[in-house]
């Protein structure tokens, strides 16, 4: 490695702190890239040290030593180990690493949160699927014409028409199942009535005809939500149904 001659004299001035302005800036840029010139600068600093060795004089007063040791005794230890004098950009990789680490932690936590959420959603979905399957099977059972409908009554008794209404006033959902119904004339139909708790005018709740075995079902007729029911009843009406029930009442329950 050889020192670049054009910088040789400037290097000496730079070592002495005498170089200023653009010349100093361009020399510093060169030093960043040139190991030979950095080495020569170190040698010139060594030459300066040699010159410094020629100084001689009295030893420093004893009080200077005491002053130093007293000052050191007052200095908290943490400052000595933690703080190093550096140019800010030499710490840039440390800052970048810290930022990346914080970022990684944030991403990891977000990832964990999303993973928990996905697992909760998967659990909900599985539960909903199970409920849906159960409801589907129940519905298929109730609506399948080939399903057996057996009404059990007291032994030796003749089966009587009967019906069961399942009603939820909050939503207006209604399922009605009937059995042992006598067959009707073609121009007639059975009609289900909801007798509200307030007022006595029954509300139509669907018309139906029984199958040859006397079974029938009404599912989810259009009933407004929030109607409290006092009773349910079934009458025989002309085909297409009636706005008000025609006596007699075939089935009634409250």
């Amino acid at each position, binding site marked *: 490695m050889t020192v670049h001659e054009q910088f*040789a*004299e*400037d*290097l*000496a*001035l730079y*070592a*002495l*702190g*005498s170089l*200023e302005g653009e010349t100093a800036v361009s020399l510093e840029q060169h030093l960043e890239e040139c190991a030979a010139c*950095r*080495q020569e*600068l*170190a*040698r*010139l*600093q*060594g*030459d*300066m*040290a*040699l*010159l*410094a*060795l*020629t*100084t*001689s*004089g*009295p*030893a*420093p*007063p004893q009080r*200077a*030593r005491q*002053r*130093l*040791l007293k*000052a*050191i*005794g007052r*200095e908290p*230890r943490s*400052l*000595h*180990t933690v*703080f*190093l*004098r*550096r*140019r800010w950009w030499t710490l840039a990789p440390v800052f970048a690493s810290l930022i990346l680490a914080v970022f990684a932690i944030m991403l990891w936590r977000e990832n964990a949160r999303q993973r928990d959420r996905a697992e909760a959603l998967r659990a909900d979905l599985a539960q909903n699927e199970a409920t849906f399957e159960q409801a589907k099977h129940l519905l298929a059972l109730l609506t399948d014409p080939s399903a057996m409908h057996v009404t059990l009554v007291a032994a030796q008794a003749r089966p009587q028409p009967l019906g069961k209404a399942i009603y939820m006033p909050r939503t207006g959902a209604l399922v009605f199942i009937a059995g042992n119904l006598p067959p009707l004339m073609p121009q007639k139909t059975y009609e289900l009535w909801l007798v509200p708790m307030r007022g006595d005018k029954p509300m139509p709740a669907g018309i139906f005809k029984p199958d040859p075995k006397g079974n029938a079902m009404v599912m989810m007729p259009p009933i407004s939500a929030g109607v409290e029911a006092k009773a349910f009843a079934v009458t025989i009406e002309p085909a297409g149904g009636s706005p008000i029930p025609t006596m007699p009442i075939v089935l009634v329950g409250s």
Partner: protein
Amino acid sequence: MSTAGTQPSSADAALIARLRSGEQDAIAELYDRYSSLVYSVALRVLADSSAAEDVLQEVFMQLWRHPASFDARRGNLGPWLAVIARHRAIDVLRKRRPQTDVEEVVIAIDADLEGKAERARAAERVRASLHTMPEAQRKALEMAFFEGMTHTEIAAQTGEPLGTVKTRIRAALVALRRAVNV
């Protein structure tokens, strides 16, 4: 002989290691070794014992606070402290904030100057070299080193061309190096 870049195995390196672990006794020992050198450099520059004491205090406090600022692989501690003391004394002389980043000060000396006797021997050779070099060259070097004058200021004061002053300063420094390495 040791050069900058070699692994330190000296007493100085051991003291610096103790300093880094926070031993107050280590700074006291380093002070006893090098306070005279640091003080004499500061006194030569400042010609004021009180100001020189302040520089002495500052240099050793700097070493105590930031022991990592001296890398033992990059030079002898004594010469390094002497140069740091010179820079700080010049700052005080010129009434300016510290201009030198001590971590940037890297000393390369072929001679081993850790012992007091070695330093005294090297100082004798340097003094002899100064006596034998041309007066103008020695004066330019001392004005730059001990008075902190820029080459422009030296040229203005001596009436010599700027290029000549620059050449003299470098040549003088290199002459000291050769004198010690003989």
